[in-house]
């Protein structure tokens, strides 16, 4: 039997069978690893405490035929405050669900690991106010999208590629999730939502888009066409987004996010992420209800 070590963050720990849990662990060298913790739901199990989501542990795994198993584990950083506070827990769940959805198994990405670890630390340190949690999550969204190859285009029109400076005035700029970023007025007026061929997945029908009504309700003035809506971003919002997408964790933290920027950015990114994943993240409803 081959044994190996995994040093990572628990993204998910779902109950399995009578008393087991299947853990989804994010390791910097191995990527996303799934492993079963036998008996981890029993009171007497020594794995129980460490098998909690969001904790950073060292695991010793044995190789199984279909699924590897956890033989021992030791807590490195328990992040218990991410589980003891509703807004933090909701935010960490969102991060975990997003990462779990995008990252493939055994596909190492040390950068993603660092980003999630940093986001958890930031969530743990910051006062869990609505403004702080929103700031942390938007910084996470933008940096993670970039790592995953889903970065929205913020410097040039996502339709025709013209640089922003060439067409944007001092007013608001349109952001289209279907096009994959900001779009110039010409592209927006032209083809449906300004996406050139290939920008929207083939076979996309209006019925596939799950959440138009919700986003439209928040922006009543927007044109309601098939597909995800266009969201208007003020220049300040766009600047903040660009800053967060490129910033390291220290610089991301010092940025001051105005409530308006946070709101516009939140809408644009939510539409963008829902479009990229082709589903709505389940933890969003809970996050919304907790942040109120």
């Amino acid at each position, binding site marked *: 039997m081959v044994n190996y070590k995994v040093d990572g963050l628990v993204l998910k720990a779902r109950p399995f069978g009578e008393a087991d849990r299947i853990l989804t662990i994010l390791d910097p060298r191995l990527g996303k690893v799934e492993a079963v913790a036998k008996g981890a739901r029993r009171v007497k199990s020594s*794995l*129980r405490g460490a098998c909690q989501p969001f904790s950073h542990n060292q695991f010793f795994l044995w190789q199984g035929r279909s699924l590897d198993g956890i033989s021992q584990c030791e807590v490195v950083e328990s992040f218990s405050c991410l589980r003891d506070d509703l807004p933090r*827990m909701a935010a960490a769940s*969102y991060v975990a669900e997003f990462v779990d959805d995008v990252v493939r198994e055994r596909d190492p990405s040390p950068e993603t690991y660092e980003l999630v670890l940093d986001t958890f630390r930031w969530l743990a340190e910051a006062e869990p106010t609505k403004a702080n949690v929103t700031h942390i999550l938007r910084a996470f969204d933008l940096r993670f999208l970039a790592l995953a190859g889903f970065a929205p285009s913020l410097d040039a029109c996502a339709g025709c590629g013209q640089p922003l400076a060439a067409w944007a005035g001092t007013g608001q700029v349109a952001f289209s999730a279907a096009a994959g970023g900001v779009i110039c007025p010409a592209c927006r007026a032209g083809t449906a939502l300004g996406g050139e061929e290939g920008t929207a997945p083939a076979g996309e029908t209006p019925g596939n888009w799950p959440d138009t009504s919700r986003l439209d309700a928040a922006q009543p003035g927007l044109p309601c066409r098939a597909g995800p809506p266009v969201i208007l971003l003020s220049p300040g919002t766009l600047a903040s987004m660009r800053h967060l997408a490129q910033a390291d964790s220290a610089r991301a933290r010092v940025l001051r996010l105005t409530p308006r920027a946070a709101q516009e950015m939140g809408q644009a990114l939510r539409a963008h992420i829902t479009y990229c994943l082709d589903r709505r993240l389940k933890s969003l409803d809970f996050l919304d209800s907790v942040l109120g």
Partner: protein
Amino acid sequence: MAKSQYPEALARLIQEFTRLPGIGPKSAQRLAFHVLRMEERDVLALATALADAKRRIGRCSVCYNLADTQPCHICGDPQRDRTVLCVVEEANDLIAMEKARTFGGLYHVLEGALSPLEGVGPEALRLPELVKRVKGGEFREVILATNPTVEGEATAMYIARLLRPLGVRLTRIARGVPVGGDLEYADEVTLARALEGRRDV
């Protein structure tokens, strides 16, 4: 597909047994053969018990415990303390609490726990019913006895948020070292909790 080696009725029995949790084809076969060896009256008793349980057991309209009477035997017991309410996730948690024999109050079964990752939101739980009960009842204290897991903690915190404005005393069950356990083998998280929740002797 190859023709089944079993007579039809036996194949069907095995098939039905495999629906049960933890029962694979091999165990199902063993159980089915055992049923064939049993006395007919025992088999009939088993069958009636299965059907009866399914037909007669429902949820108590007050606490949502599994019950065959309305209200359930706990809600209807005049001996029980009607000023303390214990909130649990599932009916089996209630049974576990009852086995401890130290709690003499009433229960409220949520029928689940909040799980953002699985998309289980507050609307899936018996929360409005809980708030209504606490508003209308003469409870002095509400004990949050959800599991010490992320889902259970989140549920407890969520309930605390809902009930705090009602001015009732809210308590959370303690977490710590299990009785008969050895400190050396306790995990770090539990030990930290045990230390936080220490009390004067």
